[in-house]
């Protein structure tokens, strides 16, 4: 019963988001435009402005738009509103250019609301998907994201990402705030506040923990924090510096960078700390490890050949293979969850650009236009890349499609956003 499962997932998310919900911490702005977008009409749901706190369809439209895969057909294109299948004037919607249309309604159900929707193919006049959710009214936002997920999956065949979360460090005055927010930037909450730098947050595969580097002990130390309980513990505090945590796909191990050998080298430790095993063996700086989705390889940065470049090496040991050949400075690699694409930062004429590289062919393209970008990470469905970008002295977040056709800005109102990381599908 996938709807029930989805709902449970949404409800658990709500537990986490309880604190800062419904406050618009970020604003979304669609920057790019692309061809071949699917034209959809999302008609206002019946009673959506009276039964719930925030209308659902603007959230659904916003979600679909930010993927770059959709174009909105004006809901006023056909004369009569439709809440039931029999009320749909298909010729009118086809005339307005709609390839599909969604209808829905919100009904009172005791102290709760019942939200239902249906998606139809405008040409075939056939239902593509539908759903029904009974929740308390204040939970409607998560239902809107779930409906957007279902529409996205029905049209594109890909899993939607609208109930996923992102993490980043917000520099606010002299404070460093480690925050978690919904992927559209809403519901931001601070999970750690410090006067000393926090860098390199990394999501556990189950979505329940974040590993990060904190300087609070006057040196870089790797911590893991549970997002449900708020409890935190040190997992790497060896002599020297401890940094760059990356979770293995099974969540049992962390790749980290330690300096006990006298230079930055990559080790694998138990996710609860302990049992450090050295993976790279060079006299150079080896850092920024990222696991392949099957857990067998580590992608990383090394300056063993002079400038920093991207390499890949088996976790079990073996020789490293260089993957970046254009430019003298390539850093911060991340692999897409489908294992096909590598994204990283390249310095190019004094600018730091997001690059996307096809792992099979080696072909690569520059994705970002800004002068200074940092730390790309993939959405869990591999269809978008999140990165930070410096704009006139302050840093904001962008999400872009890997083909560069669409770009969305998530702007925090106060402070600079650093070191973003896109979370997994899973929620604790």
């Amino acid at each position: 019963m996938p709807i029930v499962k989805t709902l449970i997932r949404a409800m658990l998310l709500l537990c986490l988001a309880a604190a800062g919900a419904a406050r618009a911490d970020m604003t979304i702005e669609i920057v790019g435009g692309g061809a071949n977008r699917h034209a959809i009409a999302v008609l206002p749901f019946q009673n959506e402005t009276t039964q719930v706190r925030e209308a659902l369809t603007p959230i659904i439209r916003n979600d679909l738009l930010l993927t770059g895969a959709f174009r909105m057909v004006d809901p006023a294109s056909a004369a009569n509103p439709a809440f039931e299948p029999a009320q749909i004037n298909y010729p009118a919607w086809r005339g307005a250019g709609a390839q599909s249309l969604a209808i829905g309604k919100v009904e009172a159900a005791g102290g709760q609301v019942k939200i239902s929707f249906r998606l139809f193919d405008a040409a075939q006049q056939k239902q593509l998907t539908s759903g029904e959710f009974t929740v308390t009214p204040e939970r409607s936002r998560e239902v809107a994201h779930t409906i957007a997920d279902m529409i996205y999956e029905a049209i594109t065949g890909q899993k939607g990402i609208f109930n996923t979360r992102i993490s980043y460090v917000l520099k606010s005055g002299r404070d460093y705030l480690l925050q978690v927010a919904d992927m559209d930037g809403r519901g931001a909450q601070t999970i750690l506040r410090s006067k000393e730098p926090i860098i390199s947050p990394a999501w556990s595969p189950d979505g329940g923990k974040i590993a990060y580097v904190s300087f609070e002990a006057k040196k870089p130390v790797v911590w893991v924090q549970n997002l449900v309980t708020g409890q935190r513990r040190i997992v790497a505090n060896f002599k020297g510096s401890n940094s760059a945590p990356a979770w293995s796909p099974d969540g049992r191990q962390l790749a980290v960078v330690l300096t006990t050998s006298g230079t930055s080298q990559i080790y694998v430790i138990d996710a609860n700390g302990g049992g450090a095993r050295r993976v790279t063996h060079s006299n150079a700086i080896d850092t920024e490890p990222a696991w392949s989705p099957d857990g067998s390889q580590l992608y990383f940065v090394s300056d063993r050949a002079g400038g920093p470049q991207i390499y890949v090496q088996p976790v079990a040991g073996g020789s490293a293979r260089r993957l970046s050949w254009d430019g003298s400075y390539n850093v911060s690699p991340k692999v897409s969850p489908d294992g096909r694409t590598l994204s990283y930062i390249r310095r190019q004429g004094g600018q730091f650009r997001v690059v996307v590289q096809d792992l099979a062919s080696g072909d690569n393209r520059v994705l970002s236009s800004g002068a200074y970008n940092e730390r790309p990470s993939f959405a869990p469905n591999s269809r978008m890349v999140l990165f930070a970008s410096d704009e006139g002295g302050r840093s904001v977040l962008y999400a872009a499609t890997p083909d560069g056709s669409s770009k969305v800005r998530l702007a925090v109102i106060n402070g600079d956003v650093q070191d973003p990381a896109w979370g997994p599908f899973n929620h604790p």
Partner: protein
Amino acid sequence: MNLKHLLIGTATVALLAACSSTKPLETAAPTVNGSAGAGQSATLPADTGAAGQGSVAVDPLKDPNSPLSKRSVYFDFDSSAVKQSEQQTVANHAEYLKSHPTRKVVIQGNTDARGSREYNLGLGQRRAESVKNAMQVIGVKENQLEAVSFGKEKPKATGNTEADYAQNRRADIAYDGE
């Protein structure tokens, strides 16, 4: 009311109950002040050395006229080599540490560059290790020295002039207890 509705309703109630017993993260977010690591992260033992130096009336580490008051070692652009002009500073602290074997220092490397935070952490580490190695060559015991990096995260100068950058290409020598 079919089975699906019933299930959803039950799940909703159960989960809301779970929500209400879970403290919102906003209030549970730990705050750290960075001064001591809240005792959760044993970094260096407390200063036990100073009290043992009974014959020294004024701790030269606290004397602004002592050569030991100079705590920063500066580097050239894109370099981790301890240059000639900085070698005396390193030697002064090395000699002090040799004659005070219970004292320990943390050497904190810094960088000026933009770019990857983690790669800059590696570059700052390289500078700190360079100072540490120079002190070991002079005869300081390894267990008196720890090389760490702040990368580009804690710049002394925040401007964008070459003078600012030069200020940040630096390793600082911090004694235990400071």
